Structure formats: C-alpha cells, structure tokens
C-alpha cells in the first residue's frame, strides 16, 4: 500500500471538490472539530422537526447568509428559512465568514427573538399631541417621506444645511450615510463615537495616522488586553477565538482590568489597577525596555520620527540616534515599577514579570485597547498611546503576532457613486472650536452646546441610537428633545422602542440583521474581507423565482431598510435632479431611473472587490449571486507590513524629498478599489502629492501621518497647544486619588455583560432572561465600612444627583472602586415599549430638578409569543447614566465615563431605581470641563479649525476649515 500516493490522492480530491465550492467531508461532523451544513446543500437542507419528536418529520430549509446587527463585529449568520412557511426559524453561524468563521456569541442566534418580538415597531408612527406625551398614530411611508423631504429641501434652499443632522448609533454600512450626506452638501454626520472609543482611537491616531488597532492574537506570544475581550467589546467574538488560538500556541495572556471578568480568569497575569493608572503601568514597562536596551533599536531608528522630535524640541539640527536613545532613557527614567506600583496598587515585582514577558515577546506582541481605560479617564487617549508605545518599542507593528493599523486589515469597496462635492459649511454644533483635536463629533455635548449657543436643528435623525438612555446626562437630552425651538423635527429610526424614540415626531421601523442590506469589513485579523448583510427573505423568495422590488415587501409589517429609505428620501428631496442630489442614487445602467440595491451591490462586487468576480465565475455565479449565496469574501490574507513596501516606480515621477525624508510625486494617485478612510496628507508647495517616505535610501510607503513615520512626538499636539502632551505620557485621571475627597470612591460604569448590547438587545427574550439587572459591585471591605450586605439598597451620589441600586458584595473588584454594568435600567413611560426588559417609570421635574421613579418592574403579559407569559423576572436594573455629567476630554473629545461617587446606605424614602438629577448642576459641570480646553481660536497654528490631516467622517471643503475672521487661514 503506497500511503504517500493515497495521501496525495485524497488531498487532491479534497482540493478539487472544495474548489468547486462544495464540501469534501460530510457535515455536520467532527472532521473540522465543528459542525456546519455543507454549503452545496444550503439551498435544500433537511433537518428533523424537533417539535414532531418522536416522529421523524423532515423540515426543509433554505440557508441564507447575512451578518449580525447587534454589536459592531458583524459576525456571519446563517438564516434557516423554512421552505414551507418562508419564515426564519433559527440563526446559526456562517462558516464562510472569514472573521467569525461560523462562531457566534449569544447575541447572534438571539436575533431570531428580535425579529419575532411581539413589541417591535412594525409601522411608521407619528406623534399625536405634545412631544413626549407618548401618543402615536400609524402613518404611511409616503406621508413620512414627503414631510421629511420637504423640510430638508426647504432648509437646503434657505441655506440652512447645518440644521440637518443624522446621529448614528450602531453603524451599518461603511461610509454609506457619510457619503450620502457629503453628496447632500450637509456637514450633519453625528456619531456616538465620543461616548465609545474615541479615547483610545485618538491615541492610535496620533501614533500611526490610523485610529484603531488590529492585533494578530492568533500568532502572538504575548497578548496584552486593556479590556475584557474574551467576552465583550468590539470584535470580541472574532478576537476571542483567535486569542484562544494564540493560547493554544503557548501565548501568554495579560489582562488589565480593575474588575474581575471572564477574561481575567483566563489570564496568566490579571492586573487589577486603580482605574486611570494604566498608562503609568505601560510607561513603567516601556522604561524597563528602554533602560535595559531590550527594544528593537533598528525598528525605532527606521520608523520613529525621532529626528523631528530632536530637531523641534531640542534644537538639535543634526541629531544622532545615539543621542536620541540617551534622551529617550532620560525621558522615561521616572517611570519606575515602584512609581507605577504607587499609582496602580500593583506590586512592582508583578509589573516586572509582565515587562519581562513583553521583552520576550519581541515582534509577537499583540495589544488592544478599545474602550475600557481609554474611555473612562481624563487623558484616556494616552492609555492607548502608552500601550502602543510598547509595540513601537518592540517593532511589533504589522508583524506576525503583532498589532496592525486597522485600515490595512479592512476593505471598503468603492461604490457605484462617490460624492461629487463636500459640504461648504462647518457645523459648530458637532465640531466646536474648543475641541479641534477631537477624534469625532462632540455628540454628547449637543444639549449643552444648543443651550449655550442657541443652536437649532430643523431635522434631527436618530438612527439606531438612544442618546436619552445611553449618553451621560439624559435629562438634558430630554430637555432638548422636548423643546421644539431647539429640535424642529425628530425622526427616530429604530428597530425597537427606545427612551429616545418617545421624544420623536416620527418613529420609523428599521430592519434587524435579516431585514436589511449592508456591507461591512472589520479588522479582526491580518486579512481583508467583506461581509454582506442582506434581507434574507428577499433572497429566499428571489431564489424561488419571485421579483422583489423593495424590502418592505418581505419584511414584517412595513419594516424597511435604511439604504432604500435614504435613496427614496433623496429622490423626494430632489425630484427633478436640479439640486444635484439625486444623481448620487441614480442608476448607471438606466440613467434617470432609481438605483436598485441589486445594481448598487452588483456594481460594487463586480468592479471593486479584487478576486471576487473570478471566484464567482468559477462557480457559475455573478459576484452578486456569490455574495447572496455565501455572504462573505476574503480578499487578502497576510497583508503584512504595508509601511515597508516599496513605492512602485510608476508612482515616482519628478519626485521631491524634503528634509524629513517625505517623498512627493507628480504621478497621479492610482485608482484604488479600497476606499477605507485614511488621513488626508498635504502635498508639497509645488503641487506634488505625498507618496511615501525615504528610509535608509529606500522609498517606502510609510505611515499615513504628517511625518510619514510613527509619531512618537506629535507635532500636531505640539502645534495645537498641547506641547506637554506631545509624547506618550501619563495624565492623571479626573478620578485620580489626589482629586477625590476622602469619602469618595470611583464608579466604573462602562462594562458590558456578555449577552447584552447597549439598548438594542432589550427586545431579545433569550438574552433578557439571562441578564436583566445591574447590581453595584462593592468590595467586601467597603460593604463592611458602609454597613450593607448583598441585596441591600445603596445610594450612589455623583456630581449632579444620585441613583438607588442594590449592592452585590464581591471581591471581584478593588476596594475603593465600585462598578455597575452598562445595558440595564431600561424604562418606559407607559405600556408603549419593550415589556420584557423595560420598567415602567414616572418622570417629574421642577425647573432643572428631575426625578425618575419606578412604578413597576416587568411582569408576564399575553402576546403573540407564549413565552411572554413565562417571564419570571421583575427587576431590570437601574438607569445610572442619567446621573453622569458630561466629562469631555479636552483633546480626544471622549466622554470620560468614570465617576467620583459617594456610596452610602439608602436613606429612608429611597426606593429601588430612583434617579434624581439637577440639570443645572450638570450644565455647570459642562462649563467646568470646557475650561480645560484650548480652543482653536486661540491655539490654531494656521487659522483653521482642525488639523486637515486628521480623519473626519464627512469632510467639508477645505475653506470650511478656516476659522471665521482668521487673518491668514491656510485653507483659503
């Protein structure tokens, strides 16, 4: 028997079969240690009907891929569409999705319960009576569209474009609405990012131009997380499985998290520091690497902008690397392990052990900070900057097992139309001059900016976003939304009831994961992939020969998808095309007609996704058919270190190299199908564009930063008024012990529970049953001091009010720190809302003093779903965010979530769920934090509002960057 020949034969047969898009091995099976239906049987998959047991009754399904819409990860799902009823019966993982690889967390399959939620919004609703009174009438989409389009058209015609605002929570398709708003000429894109990830992302942005990390966990030797990334957080499912792969390979895991989590329990080292001290820890590790010369000197010499630093800060006109190394050692010498121990409360010996692991990892150091400390603290952006300093020291940047810039692991296909123009006005309500370096819009300050500056928004879209509940200081949001002199028309686009939707004029039902189109790509590992979200019943029925024109034809009730909504709205704003808007949504194949989703995506998949047409053709499919069949496509793997790539010769035409080594060319920029967002770097004075950077005599692509290198020293920060923070450093948080009174503690309010996702999952009964309340984590010592036990009521006092919550006494949190989970404490004012996860509350206020009291918790109720009679829980937690004042970081713009609080036994008369707040005090806190800023008006180096190179979702025309009245603005 020739085993080698047999081996070769079976390998060849497998390759051949799988090359045809079929599965060689049977599934479900344990062949791949996982179980998935073979994809060639997705059109007709047979399972036994569990309800018919013990009879063997076959159920036939059509398996249609889509992607999850619950968290940002966009993991692949397979919808099991019952061929008899044409209903989705279950959702499981899509093995073809390169990011999630068939695995899902609980939130993916729970989409089924969101689709069938008896309380979901199925028809457009229009308010009756005053805003917030809670009375609604059903209206038709035509009425809605005509009303909104008319208002927008009027605002445009009257040059009030800045009164149109779109505020997004869960993002859908990469760039879809920001491109649309640009094409409208409206600087009205508002995101949630400054209450989310702006802090850490600003730190990365200043280092490498790209604003997110993409760690290669699977190949790392050391995984260093500032998060609970095995259980929650962005991309946690794709990342968690790769972290476990890394651990299988022998990688060590270090978790920095004050709170004990399911992630910390898997760690080799769990560091539970005093909140806000994380940067001090990382700088102490950096100092160890620097003092002991354990860093990658060649990498630092080649890729850091150390020469620029030495010239600008030390006036060293001919700096040497040796002198820089001496300076580096001097700069960080104060960050000893002993110093970090004092700040963090973690033993110096433990920190040394971790530092030794970092040193041993070399270029296989994967680090990650998304929110966590980056979002909790004043100066949280320096946490990410200090963390990434370790990568930059070790040369672990875009290496196997290292950390990549996100944009290199992401692919955004160029769409059929790109905006032909950009807004010519700057929106000061979103980008106020006090925050010129804010990573994203100052979204959570909107009520305060409106109050302070007399703003007005004529048409305000909240789109899958719930600022009243999610943002800090929700009562100020209520005050703003109720005031028709501030908000002319509030349109809430949402799949489910939210606290914000109660204060809308229109509530428009939007689709869940199986009811909408989107295309997404995320930095889950060193690869580039796209994943397709699609209305699965539309695809299923089209496979059966039906022609579907509009997702409302297949979705429940009149639930719509946003892509078609925006398309239709744009046509109604500009019915004859005279305003130049309509063309953005016009067919190329049939000029003068509306673009269809098939043409929109078909064009993109045909023209902008390298390799897809060929792979599709091999299976006898069009690219669109391929994506509708498999739901995902991997464009490239092992992207590697883009910065080390040589610039092609045909891009080097009449080049000029400046004193910093930046290379400029006259060759036009080659057309690229990947339009992932990157910084915009200025060319030279002679009209050449930036093409790369010269390193050791070679012209390489480098980093998309002003210097072309990793910016250890940020000229941007230095120029815009923050020279003392231009290097990776440690900023003492607003909740640093030195800033607290002796009776104050720190409240960590941001952590997630693994099965919930902000306010979008309250309509998922499976998830609600698992997690529905948020007691206050209180250390044993603190509980003794306060005199409470688990279950007792405690009053938590913030700067602007208090909330009353139950205590959970635990040693899973540091003494002196309390924690209360995000997600919980949902409420409704009457029976309108999610009855399975929202308590019914009363809200009273006198002047600026607000009081929310719980009338009743949840209870069983009769509905189309028999499970609603089986609800056994009553407690749905407490809405703590109402008591948080705004804490905008003066640089990143991030809301700094951690709160200094006093925790005491509840007072007589306090009831569970009580929330009391003074919005007058919250406004005063806003003004206090405004004092921390350094405005562009006084600090802009060039008369503009914001460094032009920095990213911005909708980028106005260059002259809109000019500050009003600037003497010699650069942008003009």
């Amino acid at each position, binding site marked *: 028997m020739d*085993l080698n020949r047999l081996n070769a034969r079976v390998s060849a047969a497998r390759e051949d079969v799988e090359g045809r898009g079929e599965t*060689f091995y049977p599934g479900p099976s344990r062949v791949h240690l996982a179980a998935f239906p073979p994809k060639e049987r997705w059109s007709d998959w047979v399972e036994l009907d569990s309800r018919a047991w013990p009879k063997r009754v076959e159920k036939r399904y059509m398996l249609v891929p889509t992607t999850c819409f619950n968290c940002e990860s966009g993991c692949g799902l397979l919808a099991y569409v019952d061929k008899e009823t044409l209903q989705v019966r279950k959702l499981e993982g899509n093995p073809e999705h390169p990011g999630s690889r068939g695995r899902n967390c609980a939130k993916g399959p729970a989409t089924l319960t969101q689709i069938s939620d008896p309380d979901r919004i199925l028809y457009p609703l229009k308010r009756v009576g005053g805003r917030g009174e809670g009375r609604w009438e059903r209206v038709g989409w035509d009425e809605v569209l005509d009303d909104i389009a008319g208002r927008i058209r009027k605002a445009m015609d009257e040059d009030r474009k800045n009164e149109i605002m779109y505020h997004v929570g869960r993002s859908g398709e990469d760039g879809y609405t920001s491109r649309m708003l640009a094409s409208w000429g409206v600087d009205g894109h508002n995101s949630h990012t400054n209450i989310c990830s702006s802090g850490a992302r600003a730190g990365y942005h200043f280092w490498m131009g790209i604003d997110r990390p993409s760690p290669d966990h699977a190949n790392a030797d050391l995984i260093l997380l500032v998060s609970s990334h095995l259980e929650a957080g962005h991309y946690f499912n794709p990342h968690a499985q790769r972290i*476990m792969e890394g651990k*299988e390979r022998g990688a060590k895991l270090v978790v920095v998290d004050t709170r004990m989590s399911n992630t910390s329990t898997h760690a080799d080292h769990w560091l539970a520091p005093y909140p806000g001290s994380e940067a001090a820890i990382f700088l102490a590790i950096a100092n160890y690497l620097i003092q002991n010369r354990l860093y990658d000197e060649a990498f630092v010499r080649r890729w850091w902008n150390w020469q620029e630093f030495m010239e600008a800060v030390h006036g060293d006109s001919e700096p040497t690397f040796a002198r820089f190394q001496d300076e580096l050692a001097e700069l960080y010498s104060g960050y000893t392990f002993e110093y970090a121990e004092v700040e963090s409360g973690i033993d110096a010996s433990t920190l040394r052990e971790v530092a030794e692991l970092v040193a041993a990892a070399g270029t296989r150091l994967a680090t990650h900070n998304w929110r966590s400390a980056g979002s909790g603290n004043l100066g949280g952006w320096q946490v990410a900057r200090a963390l990434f300093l370790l990568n930059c020291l070790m040369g672990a940047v875009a290496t196997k097992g290292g950390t990549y810039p996100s944009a290199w692991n992401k692919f955004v296909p160029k769409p059929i139309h790109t905006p032909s123009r950009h807004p010519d006005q700057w929106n000061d309500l979103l980008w106020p001059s006090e925050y010129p370096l804010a990573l994203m819009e100052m979204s959570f300050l909107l009520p305060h900016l409106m109050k302070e500056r007399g703003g007005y928004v004529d048409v305000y879209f909240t789109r899958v976003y719930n600022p009243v509940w999610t943002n800090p200081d929700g009562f100020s949001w209520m005050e703003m939304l109720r005031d028709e002199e501030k908000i002319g028309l509030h349109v809430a686009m949402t799949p489910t009831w939210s606290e914000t939707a109660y204060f809308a004029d229109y509530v428009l039902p939007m689709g869940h994961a199986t009811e909408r189109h989107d295309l997404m790509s995320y930095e889950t590992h060193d690869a580039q992939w796209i994943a397709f979200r699609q209305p699965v019943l539309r695809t299923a029925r089209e496979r059966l020969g039906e022609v579907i024109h509009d997702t409302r034809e297949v979705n429940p009730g009149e639930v719509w998808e946003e892509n078609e909504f925006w398309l239709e709205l744009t046509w109604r704003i500009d019915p004859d095309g005279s305003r130049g808007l309509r063309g953005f949504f016009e067919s190329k194949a049939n000029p003068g007609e509306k673009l269809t989703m098939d043409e929109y995506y078909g064009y993109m998949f045909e023209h902008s996704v390298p390799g897809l047409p060929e792979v599709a053709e091999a299976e006898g499919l069009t690219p669109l058919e391929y994506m509708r069949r498999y739901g995902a496509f991997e464009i490239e793997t092992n992207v590697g270190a883009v910065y080390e790539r040589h610039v092609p010769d045909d891009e080097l035409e009449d080049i000029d190299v400046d004193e910093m080594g930046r290379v400029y060319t006259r060759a036009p920029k080659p057309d690229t199908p990947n339009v992932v967002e990157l910084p915009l770097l200025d060319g030279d004075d002679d009209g050449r564009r930036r093409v790369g950077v010269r390193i050791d005599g070679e012209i390489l692509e480098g980093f998309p930063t002003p210097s072309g290198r990793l910016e250890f020293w940020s000229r941007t920060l230095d120029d815009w008024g923050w020279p003392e923070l231009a290097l990776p450093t440690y900023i003492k948080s607003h909740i640093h012990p030195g800033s607290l009174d002796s009776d104050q503690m720190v409240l960590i309010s941001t952590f997630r529970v693994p099965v919930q996702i902000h306010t979008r999952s309250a309509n998922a009964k499976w998830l609600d049953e698992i997690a529905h309340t948020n007691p206050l984590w209180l250390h044993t010592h603190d509980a003794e001091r306060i005199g409470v036990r688990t279950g007792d009521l405690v009053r938590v006092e913030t700067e602007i009010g208090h909330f009353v919550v139950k205590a959970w006494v635990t040693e899973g949190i540091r003494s002196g720190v309390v924690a209360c989970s995000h997600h919980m404490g949902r409420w409704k004012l009457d029976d309108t809302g999610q009855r399975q996860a929202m308590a019914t509350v009363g809200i009273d206020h006198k002047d600026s003093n607000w009081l929310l009291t719980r009338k009743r918790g949840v209870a069983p109720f009769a509905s189309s779903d028999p499970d609603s009679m089986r609800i056994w829980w009553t407690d749905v937690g407490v809405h703590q965010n109402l008591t948080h004042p705004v804490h905008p970081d003066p640089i990143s713009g991030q809301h700094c979530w951690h709160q200094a609080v006093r925790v005491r036994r509840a007072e007589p008369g306090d009831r569970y769920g009580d929330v009391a707040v003074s919005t007058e005090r919250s406004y005063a806190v806003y003004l206090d934090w405004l004092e921390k800023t350094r405005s562009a008006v006084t600090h802009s180096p060039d008369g503009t509002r914001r460094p032009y190179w920095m990213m911005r979702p909708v980028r106005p025309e260059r002259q809109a960057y000019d500050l009003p009245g600037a003497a010699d603005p650069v942008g003009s």
Partner: protein
Amino acid sequence: MELLRALGVLAEPPTNEHVRIANVLGLPAPPEPSAYHDLFLFQTYPFASVYLGAEGMMGGEAGDRVAGFWRALHMTPPTEPDHLCALLGLYVSLAEREAAEEDEASRALVANARGALLHEHVASWVFPFLSKVRELGGAFYGGWSTMLEEAILAEIRSSGSPRNLPLHLREAPGLPDPRSDGGNAFLNGLLAPVRSGMIVTRGDLAGAARRLDLGLRMGERAYILKAFFSQDAGKVLEWLVDTAEDWTERHEQQGADLGEISAFWEGRARATADLAKALLEDRSGWDDSPGDSATPAGERASGSHEGSGVS
C-alpha cells in the same frame, strides 16, 4: 496527512461523502448504515475509553484523561473527545499547525503534543480495535481497518519510539481473580479490554453459545457470560482459554512496531489465559462462581451499564 483525516471520517455513519472518499481511497463502496450501526454501535465501539478504561465502557477516568489532553492544548473538548474520528482530526490539525509554525521552539512544542496524542491516546488501543473490526467488518470496514492500521503505523515509525508505556496502560488494573475478588468483578474484567487483553463482542458470545451448545440468554454481555457459567463453567473456561490465547497471538504479531504497547496487551491476554487455566484446575478454590445462584443480587452486572451502549 489528509489520509488520516479521511480515514477518521469513515468511522462516522456513512453519508454520500463517504462514497466519494472511499472511491478516492480505492475502498469498496461503504455499506448500508445498518452495517455501520451493527459494527460500531453493537460490536466494537470507536472510542478510546472503551479499550483503555478499567470499566471497559465509554467515559470514566480514561475518557477524562483524553478530555484533559484537549484542555491541555487550551481546546474545549468536543462532545466525544475520545472518538476515533475526533482523535485523528485533532492529530491532523496538530500536524498542520506544526507545519505552519515558524518559530522553532513553538513548532517543537506542537510536535511534542502531536507525538503524545499518537502514543498515549491512539496507539495505546487502536490496533486491537482495528484487528477486531477487520474480523467482523466485511469488505469495506476490513479494507478500511487495514489501511488505517498501516497509516498509523507509518506515523508511529516516523515519530520514533515512545519513551514510556502510555499512562492509560500503566495505570490499568489487571484482571480480577474470582477466587479473591468475586465472580462479578471477574466477569466485568473479562469485558474490559485493558484488563483482559481481549475484545469480547456480542457476536463472540453468540458464537460461543453455538460452539459450546449453551443457551444464549438475552441481555448485556456480562449477563450472557454469567448465564454461560451457570450452565457449564468448565466449557466456558476452556473457551476463554482459547479466546485469550488467540488474542495473545494477535498482540504478538503487532510486537515489532509497537514494542511495549504490544507487550502490554500480549501480557494481559496471556494472564487471562493463565487465569482461566488455573480456574479450570482449581475449581475448589472458587466457590463464588459467577454463575452461582448464590451470587448476591447486588453484585450482578448492573443493567445500568447497558444504557451506555458499550457494556
């Protein structure tokens, strides 16, 4: 290496894909599912723990040991971590990981893990199992078992001689002596391959009934054996001597490649034959015959074992 994965898959219930795989491997067409079920659900069971556990059943300490191996690799054990298909799949995935690993030290670690899996959890039991499959399995499974045996032997040859006897075997207790340990312990021990050195299937017992002209009482194997002893203990012991000597020869034939492992199995089978001979000669010292009606009810082979499907 793909060959091992494909052969592992063939230990699963047959599907359309099996036809294609069998064709690629030059094997006859897979039989009907009923043949698979008879072989792998009623006669021989493709689970390591059945052959390595002191109880001769699925799970137990042997099953935990295999699951622990998965955990040691930081992997969540699958539902049946010791199924032959899962073990071969894991082995191939470790080989692939090893090949992809650039770092020399990491590669060596994975190679060690792969070698340990092969030696501790595959080679320690699979050859007696495959031998029995070849005896019972007809053209397809007979060909399959021969091919798999060669493929595993080739892996063993290429990975070098193991250092120690696998832990499963080192820890395995011997066959109880009914004269000191009681009749039921002896019967159950006979049916635990790692203790007796032999695999006694339902088919073997049916054949014995015909050969010895004994009544075949319907029930689990221990019950059938007990009934044999109650009818004619002498004949049964003679049959046991023959069976154990047959297994001694089978194990001897594997000796060249498997070294200590074969010696272990051979030793166990020979000890069984010797014990049966001793019992034939010394019935007087064995009052508590397994077939004795005086055997306490509580000592009867438990019917609950039958529920595991492997007793």
